């Protein structure tokens, strides 16, 4: 320990020596003193002589010393504290205590291409700062936002370490594959684009402890400055930069344990064997001699226990910041190693970041920052490995007595999931390098010119390898390997002129005009090989390298944007504020003639509290009314979507071509027009802080890959040889909602304080028009060889509604096959198209124990026309409730999140409650409808059968392809997804500074944290927090047993010196 700290000290000192020029010294008198706040001495506070350029900063004990002319005024300032001025009289020791800046109205908020005082804001912007990050154990910053920012809905797509989240700002705005916002990290736009497959998360490259603030731009008046890419909102991320003063070195580290929060209740071996026998009795499968006496069998294999285990994680980060009043710097390094709770998954990340800002000349400032992130993600070996485990028979052992992997004795049963996880290779390595440099010149007083160049490089590699194996009868004789390399480069160059000044008394003007050009460029290469000589040598060269199974692909592509933009902010007397922005974007994603788009916005704000009648109000210390309108765009379409491309196909005669896509020459921007009305209110010296926003957004020309019917050649199950669907502008939808943020300081005492934060978001979504003639957009989902419609998007309804049949009962008794209509006529109950009542339980047809579906159109047949809306994945509202309690050095915080009124389609259950399946199933299948003859000697006819357990709700033993299709997509699989989750509990203890006096340490904090502690929900699946399956907006809320988010316990230490 001592050795390492010495290294840090020496290293830190070296850097400081290099950077710190000598401070000017030569005045009349020397004034000394200590600066402190309510917690003790303040390190690094700035002490300046008013009106002069000289100044000093406080040292580790809060002490300063400065020479001044007597009669001068000293200003003491520190971020987050109120600045204080003291006139130097005869005293030579001036001790000051700075009070907390509760109003925070001068807090700076990051907006597009600049910053703004919070008090000048006219749009809807929410800030989440590093304090929130410190309270969570987040490996990726999207997790921090959950429940902390009104109007932002975050749902993890997967619990895979390093996996991504579905992030929606003010509802789903687009039907297109990506409704993700854009991220602007220190000015560099990171497009999450349409590439999200649930595993890749561009935010995972960032070490959360490097973040200073996240500003979420929500309404168009704030986002329109980002034009064509801003429709889904913008999240501005600002990383930490240096402060003048003695260097601060911070170490933060924690270790954690993650565990599976829940298991699903599947059949054990005895139950399975008994159930198998029932199935063979029903003539669905041939009998098995293995299961003759189920009661003699044990528990069998618990595949969930085999696949999931408690996993370890550890994180270390070290940062140094410092500088003087000319130059500041920040350097940080981080290391994260997280194992996944599912076997052979995990995430490792190393990060390094640095920045220097310098006042080069009186009129010229410059700076450079960079970040480097190197990560490796061990992914799930099969995308549905969890379903594989759940469906695996308990009769199959993980390993056979000789130590090898065991497997099923039936070709149709799933592979050994544990074996697959262990023997297959599937990992991604990602290297991200981002660099940003700027020069800023003050041309005239108030007029600055800034030129800024940003680049973002990504080197990504995925490697997969599948050895040959033999698990029981499941045999795979091929050895296949592949490498995928995907390198991207993004650069942008911005030139911005800003004028900031007073035109006349009370008329403040801030004008910004800029121009930007950017290019996103990528190179993809993939190589597949086979015929490996050994499973131990799995790099590509280990394979046959020539021959039919070698597959090589590669291409380079990209898109470019050329833009002009401007913003004017006019402020009259700090009472009336007007912001107007305009951006013009040219994008080569569209054909000529459709390339340029204009995105204007305007917003007004009235600071009522600055009016005379409220100015000195004791209760209201801030009241602002805001009104904004603007237009933003979305250009997230596939490259070259406007032209028909040809794809190469190898054939017996050489390479051939087919149309790769259906083109659409007329493709253009998607445009969102939004209106925002907001109110900011602070009461009792900001003890109560309330922000309420109402918005209305309408998106026109929705960009969407049009899901063509199969009869237009969109392909069969495999889609081999099919042209991909065209992109089109197909309709409009609207989102309207209310967001409330309430921050309160419930108790503020010397030793004890309690503050709370409540966030409430409500969004209503509706499709206004669709240009397809049916006015609906069914979304299909393919699992195995089955393709089924799972959601439908219909004009007048919210997007992506679950779509299917309604189960209204079960044929329990013969008379259930008939009903009396309104006129008293006896009629047969509707049966599926083409089906009739079976002549015996084993004959084809509908029988006692099958489901009754609702015949919605009353035509006497259950068919496609009887499908309807069976649930809305959109919550009625979501909320977050956080509390922080402080007592002396202790801080306790807990964060609840919740969602109310959303439905989840438990699609995994559709395949785990098939009563007649011999793959393993949930124990609920044991409640299948048991049927028996009413008269044991009577005929096989349905009139002589009944259900003996009518209180249950499972159908009789039947398979997926039974005539009645009991397991079709229906409301039987739609569940209430509401939940309340204690997302986070954090307890920390900061050692009193007095204890540290004798050491070189300035701050020591120990903490522990529990993430995802408990969830109250009625949902039957693993986790009610379900994002979008495969990142598709129209598959929101469809849960195919996704990788559950783990429960995480951590213990950590934070040291500063």
């Amino acid at each position, binding site marked *: 320990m001592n050795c390492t700290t010495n290294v840090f000290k020496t290293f830190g000192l070296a850097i400081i020596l290099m950077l710190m020029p000598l401070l000017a010294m030569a005045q009349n008198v020397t004034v000394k003193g200590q600066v402190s706040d309510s917690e003790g001495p303040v390190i690094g506070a700035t002490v300046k002589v008013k009106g002069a350029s000289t100044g000093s900063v406080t040292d580790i004990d809060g002490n300063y010393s400065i020479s001044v002319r007597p009669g001068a005024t000293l200003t003491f300032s520190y971020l987050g504290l109120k600045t204080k001025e003291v006139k130097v009289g005869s005293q030579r020791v001036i001790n000051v205590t700075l009070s907390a800046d509760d109003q925070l109205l001068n807090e700076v908020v990051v907006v597009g291409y600049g910053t703004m005082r919070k008090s000048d804001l006219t749009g809807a912007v929410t800030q989440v700062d590093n304090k929130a990050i410190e309270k969570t154990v987040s490996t990726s910053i999207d997790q921090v936002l959950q429940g902390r920012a009104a109007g932002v809905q975050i749902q993890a797509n997967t619990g895979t370490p390093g996996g991504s989240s579905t992030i929606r700002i003010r509802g789903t705005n687009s039907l297109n594959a990506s409704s993700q916002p854009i991220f602007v990290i220190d000015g560099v736009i990171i497009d999450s684009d349409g590439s999200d497959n649930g595993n890749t998360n561009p935010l995972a490259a960032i070490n959360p402890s490097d973040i200073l603030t996240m500003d979420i731009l929500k309404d168009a008046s704030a986002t329109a400055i980002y034009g064509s890419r801003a429709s889904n909102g913008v999240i501005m991320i600002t990383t930490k930069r240096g402060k003048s003063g003695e260097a601060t070195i911070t170490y933060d580290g924690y270790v954690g344990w993650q565990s599976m929060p829940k298991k699903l209740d599947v059949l054990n071996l005895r139950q399975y064997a008994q159930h198998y026998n029932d199935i063979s009795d029903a*003539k669905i499968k*041939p009998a098995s001699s293995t299961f003759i006496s189920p009661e003699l069998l044990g528990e069998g294999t618990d595949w969930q226990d085999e696949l999931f285990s408690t996993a370890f994680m550890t994180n270390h980060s070290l940062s140094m910041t410092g500088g003087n009043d000319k130059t500041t710097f920040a350097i940080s390094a981080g290391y994260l190693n997280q194992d996944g709770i599912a076997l052979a998954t995990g995430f490792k990340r190393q990060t390094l970041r640095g920045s220097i800002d310098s006042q080069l000349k009186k*009129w010229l400032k410059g700076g450079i920052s960079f970040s480097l992130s190197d990560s490796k993600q061990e992914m799930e070996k099969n995308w549905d490995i969890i379903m594989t485990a759940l469906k695996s028979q308990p009769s199959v052992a993980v390993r056979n007595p000789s130590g090898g992997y065991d497997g099923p004795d039936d*070709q149709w049963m799933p592979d050994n999931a544990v074996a697959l996880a262990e023997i297959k290779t599937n990992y991604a390595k990602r290297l991200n390098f981002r660099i940003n440099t700027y020069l800023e010149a003050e*041309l005239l007083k108030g007029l600055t010119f800034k*030129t800024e160049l940003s680049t973002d490089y990504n080197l990504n590699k995925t490697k997969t390898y599948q050895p040959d194996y033999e698990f029981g009868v499941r*045999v*795979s*004789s*091929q050895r296949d390997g592949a490498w995928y390399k995907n390198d991207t480069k993004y650069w942008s*160059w911005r*030139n911005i002129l800003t004028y900031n000044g007073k035109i006349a008394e009370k008329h403040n003007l801030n004008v910004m005009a800029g*121009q930007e*050009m950017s290019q996103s460029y990528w190179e993809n290469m993939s190589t597949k090989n086979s015929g490996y000589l050994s499973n131990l040598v799995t790099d590509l060269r280990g394979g046959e390298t020539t021959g*039919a*199974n070698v597959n090589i692909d590669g*291409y*380079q*592509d990209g898109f*470019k944007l*050329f833009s002009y933009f401007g913003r004017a902010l006019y402020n009259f007397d700090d009472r009336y504020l007007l912001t107007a922005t305009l951006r013009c974007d040219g*994008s*080569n994603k569209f054909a000529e003639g459709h390339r340029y788009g204009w995105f204007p916005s305007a917003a007004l704000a009235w600071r009522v509290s600055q009016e005379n009648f409220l100015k000195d109000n004791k209760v209201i210390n801030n009241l602002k009314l805001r009104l904004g309108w603007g237009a933003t765009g979305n250009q997230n379409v596939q490259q070259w979507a406007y*032209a*028909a*491309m040809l*794809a190469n*196909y190898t*054939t*017996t*005669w050489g390479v*051939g*071509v*087919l*149309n790769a896509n*259906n083109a659409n020459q007329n493709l253009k921007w998607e445009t969102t027009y939004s209106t925002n009305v907001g109110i900011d209110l602070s009461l009792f010296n900001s003890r109560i802080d309330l922000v309420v926003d109402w918005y209305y957004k309408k998106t026109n020309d929705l960009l969407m890959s049009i899901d063509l*019917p*199969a009869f*237009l*050649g969109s392909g*069969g*199950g495999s*889609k*081999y*040889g*099919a*042209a991909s669907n065209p992109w089109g502008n197909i309709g409009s939808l609207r989102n309207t909602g209310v967001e409330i943020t309430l921050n309160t300081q419930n108790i503020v005492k010397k030793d004890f304080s309690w503050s709370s934060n409540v966030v409430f978001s409500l969004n209503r979504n509706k499709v206004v028009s669709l240009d397809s003639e049916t006015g*609906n957009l069914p979304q299909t989902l393919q699992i195995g*060889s*089955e*393709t089924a419609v799972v959601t439908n998007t219909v004009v007048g309804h919210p997007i992506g509604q679950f779509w299917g049949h309604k189960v209204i009962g079960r044929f329990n008794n013969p008379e259930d096959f008939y009903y009396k209509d309104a006129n008293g006529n006896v009629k047969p109950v509707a049966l599926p198209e*083409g*089906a009739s009542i079976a002549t015996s339980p084993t004959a*084809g*047809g509908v029988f006692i124990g099958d489901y009754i579906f609702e015949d919605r159109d009353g035509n006497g*047949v259950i068919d*496609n026309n009887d499908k309807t809306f069976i649930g809305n994945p959109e919550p009625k509202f979501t909320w977050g409730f956080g509390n922080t309690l402080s007592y002396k050095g202790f801080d306790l915080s807990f964060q609840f999140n919740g969602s109310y009124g959303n439905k989840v389609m438990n699609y995994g259950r559709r395949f785990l409650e098939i009563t007649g399946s011999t793959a393993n199933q949930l124990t609920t299948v044991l409640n299948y409808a048991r049927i028996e003859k009413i008269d044991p000697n009577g005929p096989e006819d349905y009139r002589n059968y009944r259900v003996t357990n009518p209180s249950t709700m499972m159908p009789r033993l039947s398979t*997926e*392809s039974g*005539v009645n299709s009991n397991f079709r997509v229906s409301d039987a699989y739609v569940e209430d997804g509401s939940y309340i989750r204690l997302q986070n509990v954090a307890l920390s203890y900061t050692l009193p500074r007095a204890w540290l006096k004798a050491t070189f340490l300035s701050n020591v904090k120990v903490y522990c944290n529990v993430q995802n502690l408990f969830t109250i929900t009625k949902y039957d699946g693993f986790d009610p927090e379900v994002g979008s399956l495969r990142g598709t907006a129209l598959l929101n809320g469809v849960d195919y047993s996704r990788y559950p988010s783990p429960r995480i316990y951590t213990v950590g230490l934070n040291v500063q010196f």
Partner: protein
Amino acid sequence: MKTNIFKYTIALAGMLTVTSCADDFLEQKNTYQQGQDNFFGDDKAVAQAIYPLYSYVWFDFNDKFYYGMGDGRANNITAQYSDYIYPYTNFTETGLSVGLSEAWGALYSVVAQSNNALNNIRNFSMAEVTEQGKTQGIAEARFMRGLAYWYIGTLWGCGIIYEDTQDLVNGYVVPPCRQTDVIEFAIRDLEFAAKNLPATSPATGRVNKYAAYAMLSRFYLSMAGLTTSGRYDGSNIATEKNSGTRNEYYLDLARKAAAMVIDNGPYKLLDNYADLFAAATQNNNDESIFQLQFQAGADGGLAQSMTRFLAWSTAVNQGNSWGGSTYCSYDLWSEFKEYNDKTLGDNVVIDDAVRRHYSVASYGEEYPELSTDPENPYIYGVTESAGSQGANVKKYVIGTNAVNGFAVNNNSGINTYMMRLAEVYLNYVDAMIGNNTSTTDSKALSLFNALRRRANVPEKQSVGYEDLRHEFRVETAFEGTYWYFLVRRGYYRQQEVVNYVNNQNRNASYYESSTHTYKLSDSYTAPGPSVAVATAKNLTLPIADTDQTKNPLLKPDADGNIATVSYEFGEREVADADLF
């Protein structure tokens, strides 16, 4: 002052250097993918646009539906536990059944990509492309499109006809066309191909004009049952489904088309039935007229994936082998083994041993070609235990990689027969029987007996429908064609066909493991476990569920009928005189 000038210069330079060239900046070039407007530079490029139409687009049709429908529904196959077959065997299929939407999608993939190919050739060919090259390409694309439409019209009884996907992208809710129009559309495509394709294939495996005539012999027989008399003109549709007579005009065309292939085409029957399905000689042999052209060792859409569903064990096939419970039906087995041939006399029971051996693997049958050591052949039931319910399917099963040297997992590497000369022979015979009960036409008899001679079964002096049906079934078992043969009979003898398929001992088990004999299980009761009773409705299929949702005009009414419209045909491009 100096600094100021310097500062302004920087600022101005920064702002101006980039503003003049926005349009230039936004230009970019696609370096990796050919586009329709820059590819068709010569005849070779035109041909390249045709190659993939022989494999990829058919993949999902071939994978499960080829035999699931063509044989499963006609009860050549019993597969009680395979959901890609039994819904069809059991007459319980719905718009969601496995294989159905894949087949519907695949056939329309053929249509859509053939349309794209021929539109690309028509609209984007550059000056260097010859007229002959264009015609060749267009005719080949129309061959594929026409064949797909024939399947669609035959299977679903209606279809959506279009010639360019672009026409429907922004309005795909359109009514389907009548069955006769779909078949007519198919016929016109194939007539164009027959007229314009060269007499010899430009490369092994590609189609020539006689392949088009061969298909026409099949299509004309469909149309013969669907129309009353004369050339189809939209009004002469046969409404009586049990009339028992066919349109003589199309019978005549079918005969002429078949004769054209037989008399002038380059094909000839292979001497040995075995060679048709032997690993080394299956692909593009002399008898093959059109095969889907898969490639050994390839994966994805170029792979012969069907074999894995038929092969009963990994000892007889490379890798995945899921056909252990996919059996020759009892009904077909008995036609192979003990067919009571009334034409040959009373109580003449024929064992069609040659064709049975190469079509069905039953207990004790020896297959040296499935063994690495021919001295020690694979013996079905002995080398491995026999299937528990019946005899397994042998056709398309060609052994492991160690045996044939090219099969890989999920790709046995052989082609799929879509038309071979034997069928043309039988189509000729069918046309010659015409509206009579039988034929003694010498040419018909010689063709018919050529097949029987090869199979080493007695020749016949007269051929009636039953003789033809039996011959067609045993000759082409598991080649995905028998159902279509039955359906075309159903156009004019509907009730007869419905009765026939309801009396086929469906889903019967027939293996007695103790004695290794094959006989109908005593416990069997008609119509068989899980089998529904077929009606006339079962002669067509429900349309894929997802497409019904997207296009509600494809939904049937309460009676199960789909409203259709007539298709507006232009003038005929090809006259009868151009063809014969």
